[in-house]
């Protein structure tokens, strides 16, 4: 039996998410509640609020409070070339297909602070596809988007990024792409010359481009199944026939109602291909 405290907190969570949606139109109501609640509990501690209801009070009454709360609602944990074998598979299995298109559009959905985008931009440059590609990097968190656009990362993360890049089959040195200054690595702005950064919500926005590759990794795990289905539907609608969808290493289409839109292209790396018939 659920405890009274847990039942009350579930209710407070729903009310808080309703308040955020109705006042600011950020819609977290279809996010998975377990991790959302965990992060909001951290926010409660951070802002010295005794309850989620107090957080709600501040959201409603303090202008400028929501932007401070948003980082707790969205997850911004990523690394460059995370899961190198995913990028190796893109390089070896997917790129040969993409080579056959005269122009390419790639959508990095839920790009957060940009690590995935720069990884793909470097990979496409190494494979000679950069000049025919437009990248769309989207997220709901505009602060994260601004950081993605800046392309500046702490120097102490670079060793991991470098090792990941090497394991992804990198054909150049990662150090070719950034300059180190004051403990930070500033990535070459030419890498984002062909990128459109945009505020886009998988909850409420529509498809905006026809794409050949969608990479959306470790975003869907934060969604309830219905919202996962909506997002996968957007990806399917955006992709050309036989276009590619890359998910996180523990994400799959197995429980999705849109699973039949895709076939497994690389099962291990969670790379799917849109079926030719759609």
């Amino acid at each position: 039996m659920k405890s009274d405290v847990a039942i009350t907190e579930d209710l407070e969570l729903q009310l808080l998410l309703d308040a955020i949606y109705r006042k600011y139109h950020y819609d977290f109501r279809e996010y998975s509640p377990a991790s959302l609640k965990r992060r909001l509990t951290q926010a409660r501690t951070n802002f010295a609020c005794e309850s989620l209801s107090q957080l709600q009070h501040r959201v409603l009454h303090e202008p400028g409070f929501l932007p401070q709360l948003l980082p707790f609602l969205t997850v911004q944990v990523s690394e460059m070339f995370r899961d190198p074998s995913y990028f190796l598979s893109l390089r070896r299995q997917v790129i040969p297909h993409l080579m056959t298109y005269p122009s390419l559009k790639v959508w990095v959905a839920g790009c957060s602070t940009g690590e995935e985008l720069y990884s793909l931009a470097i990979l496409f440059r190494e494979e000679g596809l950069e000049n025919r590609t437009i990248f769309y990097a989207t997220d709901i968190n505009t602060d994260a988007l601004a950081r993605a656009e800046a392309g500046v990362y702490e120097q102490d993360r670079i060793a991991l990024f470098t090792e990941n890049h090497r394991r992804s089959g990198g054909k150049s040195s990662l150090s070719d792409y950034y300059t180190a200054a004051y403990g930070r690595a500033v990535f070459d702005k030419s890498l984002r010359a062909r990128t459109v950064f945009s505020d886009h919500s998988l909850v409420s926005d529509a498809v905006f481009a026809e794409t050949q590759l969608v990479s959306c990794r470790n975003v869907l795990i934060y969604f309830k199944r219905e919202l996962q289905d909506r997002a996968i539907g957007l990806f399917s609608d955006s992709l050309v026939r036989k276009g590619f969808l890359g998910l996180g290493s523990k994400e799959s289409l197995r429980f999705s109602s849109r699973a039949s839109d895709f076939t497994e292209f690389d099962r291990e790396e969670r790379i799917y291909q849109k079926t030719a018939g759609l």
Partner: protein
Amino acid sequence: MSDEPSITRGNQSAVVIGASVGAIEALTAILPALPATFLLPVLVVVHIPPDRKTILPELFASRCHLPVKEAEDKEPIRAGTIYFAPANYHLLVEPDFLLSLSNDEPVLYSRPAIDVLFESAADAYGSDLTGVILTGASADGAQGLKAIVANGGSAIVQDPATAEGTAMPTAAIESSPAARILPPDRIAAALLEACISES
């Protein structure tokens, strides 16, 4: 409640287990001793390095009477099934008894973290939950076990004298003084009692 079919029984109560250094030996004394008739789902977090794969599901599948698998995101929790958290993801229980994975920051340097599983399971299952802290060298799990007790659930901790890592069970006993303290070879029997009293 007793006339409910077993499949829904498992949706309402569960066992969660957390272990770190020395986990395989401790779990080997517990999981294979659970009979095929054991009705509760068993969710397990073991601290493992953040590589792509964990061998734990395969390792225990061959030793256990119950089905063993790696937990998948948004997977319905089934009765009488043992789930292991994957490497580099937290494992959580949703209020509607689906499993969730998350990429949130490590907790006490660990992802998966025991606290994350235990606290979310405590919310979902309330008093129908048994939490077990085994051997380990960190304090992970102590807060989670406390949350389970606070929500009316039961706590079991491996006797630190039998544990390869004493810090984790010691921290858990400190945070949850009401916990039963048992050697690993008696924990399976205690879980069976919990299973029987639930049904």
